[in-house]
């Protein structure tokens, strides 16, 4: 086998499949042929044995009727040339001397009355022939040998071997053909998928694999591929929106910074100059926060941060944050209350969860003004922990909730209100870091944000 062929065999799945199929069909044909060979050989052998048994039975009948003379006569008659064409008979006396028969003498190695095969010379024949024979010792000491020529068993075996080799030779092209047909069929289905994948790689994200609904592995492959493509298309679209929004949100403070810098120079007093510089610092801080938030979200979405999971009490976290934001809420004529402030032990990223909840509380204060109580809390939710922040503000209509969770998705079109628009997105990313999800519910009135957090076994 040349090196090229070897490497092709090694590399090509098709070639390996064909070879495997061929080997399998050969391996399954060979035992069948061997079995058939042995069975038919046994049937032929059985035929010879029953012939010998029948002839012995007839001669023994003559012995019972006419004693040794009767048997001697019977053997003599049958052994006469021309009567017994394919058999041998021999009757010897107590001392092994020939009394009648068509072979010269009792074969010296022959004892017992089991079936044997051996080469013997027949009277009047130059060449030895193969006989199957059995013997019988009579009560008065004489011995009888009855045999039949089995020479035709050899050609029969040869014919069988030839037939088998023919069958094997036939099995190879049939196996090859069958496997090629199968492989072609599979390749064509895989090719369909590959073509779609190629055009996706070429930039056309709208292409989909055709599925027939048969639910076979190819169909399922197609369906999961399509599901993956849906996701990729959605992500790309989201990425586009996010990039636009991020550009907008970063360019706006840059524009303001440039304006402030020009203003610094124009200010007449130190006090006013300092104030303009403060404004620049604030804009820079806002930009830094937005970039940090974006990175934090990407990390959480990528599942980074699980190495910093610790045991902590979500109840304590909520009480802490409630106390931290209470003064701010009171400034806005709101209050924050922790519902069921019991201990909820949890294994997770305390910093990120703290940040997520504080963003949610911050949102609730920002977007839910006008009195009322912001209720936060957590409870066991099946196997998971449910954590919520619910306000009494205007809420978010059901059809706009998707948009609200999107990065930089602020719901006022002018994007005028302060804030990075990352709060809900971060909360969702943190929930997914904890194998959970974010839910937006109607608080009637107001918005109720729920974080469902799976319990991870602590290592």
């Amino acid at each position: 086998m040349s090196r090229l062929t070897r490497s092709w065999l090694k590399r090509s799945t098709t070639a390996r499949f064909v070879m495997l199929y061929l080997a399998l069909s050969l391996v399954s044909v060979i035992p069948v042929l061997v079995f058939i060979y042995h069975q038919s050989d046994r049937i032929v052998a059985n035929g010879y044995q029953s012939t010998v048994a029948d002839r012995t039975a007839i001669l023994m009948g003559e012995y019972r009727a006419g004693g040794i003379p009767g048997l001697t006569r019977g053997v003599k008659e049958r052994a006469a040339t021309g009567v017994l064409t394919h058999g041998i008979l021999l009757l010897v006396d107590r001392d092994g001397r020939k009394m009648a028969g068509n072979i010269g003498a009792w074969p010296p190695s022959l004892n017992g009355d089991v079936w044997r095969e051996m080469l013997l010379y027949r009277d009047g024949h130059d060449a030895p022939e193969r006989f199957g024979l059995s013997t019988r010792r009579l009560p008065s000491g004489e011995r009888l040998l009855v045999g039949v020529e089995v020479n035709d068993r050899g050609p029969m075996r040869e014919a069988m071997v030839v037939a088998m080799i023919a069958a094997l030779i036939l099995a190879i092209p049939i196996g090859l053909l069958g496997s090629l047909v199968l492989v072609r069929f599979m390749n064509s289905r895989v090719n369909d998928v590959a073509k779609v994948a190629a055009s996706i790689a070429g930039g056309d994200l709208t292409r989909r694999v055709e599925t027939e609904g048969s639910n076979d592995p190819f169909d399922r492959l197609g369906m999961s591929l399509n599901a993956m493509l849906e996701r990729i298309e959605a992500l790309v679209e989201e990425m586009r929106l996010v990039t636009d929004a991020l550009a907008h949100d970063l360019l706006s403070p840059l524009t303001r910074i440039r304006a402030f810098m020009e203003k610094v120079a124009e200010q007449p007093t130190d006090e006013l100059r300092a104030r303009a510089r403060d404004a620049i610092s604030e804009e820079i801080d806002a930009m830094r926060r937005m970039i940090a938030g974006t990175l934090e979200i990407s990390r959480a979405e990528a599942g980074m941060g699980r190495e910093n999971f610790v045991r902590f009490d979500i109840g304590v976290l909520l009480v802490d944050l409630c106390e931290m934001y209470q003064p701010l809420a009171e400034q806005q004529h709101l209050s924050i209350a922790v519902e069921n402030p019991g201990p909820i032990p949890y294994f997770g990223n305390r910093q990120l969860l703290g940040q997520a909840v504080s963003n949610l509380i911050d949102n609730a204060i920002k977007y839910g003004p006008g009195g009322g109580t912001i209720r936060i809390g957590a409870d066991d939710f099946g196997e998971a922990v449910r954590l919520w922040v619910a306000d009494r503000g205007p809420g978010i209509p059901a059809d706009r909730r998707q948009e609200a969770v999107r990065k930089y998705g602020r719901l006022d079109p002018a994007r005028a209100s302060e804030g990075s628009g990352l709060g809900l997105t971060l909360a969702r990313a943190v929930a997914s870091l904890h194998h959970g999800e974010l839910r937006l519910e109607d608080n009637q009135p107001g918005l109720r944000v729920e974080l469902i957090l799976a319990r991870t076994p602590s290592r």
Partner: protein
Amino acid sequence: MTRKILVVEDDATTADYIAKGLSENGYVVDRAADGRDGFFHAVDGTYAAVILDRMLPGMDGLAVLSALRAANVDTPVIILSALGSTDERVKGLKAGSDDYLVKPFAFSELLARLEVLQRRGAVHGEQVVTTLHCGDLSMDLLSHRVERAGNRVDLQPREFRLLEFLLRNQGQVVTRTMMLEEVWDYHFDPGTNVIDVHISRLRKKIDESGDVPLLHTVRGVGYMLSEAA
């Protein structure tokens, strides 16, 4: 006390900015532009503090830090890094840094943290303090009793810890993020003026019964508790 600071930073502009600011505040500054050089300088342990960039040519900042700690150099180290996620901070602190500052930072923030770090180092080893004072403000750490000019001031537990932090670092500026880290143990930036609101409450409680204000706002940086105006 040595006032010698080692700045390990490969970006020349940032290094100039830090060195200039530190010199203006009375520090002597040595500079190193890569990790190996930085380790070489810092390993003798004579610096008051090391300001260490996280991403350095030659030897990564965290590697320098680990090597220093392995060599039993316990000089306070502040890490500067553009990697600002909470996990990165935790990683930095775990590696043995005493503080972690995210770029871009205001010099005043760096200075405030540096001063607090030095004070912490100086207090280290002193006998246990049970009362803290600032002017006519006193805090008893055992009975949790706070008085201003002889009048009792009632504080919430968190306000108490906030005031304790300010008292322990009186005369020095503490920033909002420092307070968030020290008092609440959160390493994220809450974005809104949460801390300011807490400070204004605390100020109302401790300054309304005194003659002179003790809690001062330091513009653009943070707050300072001090007798002097």
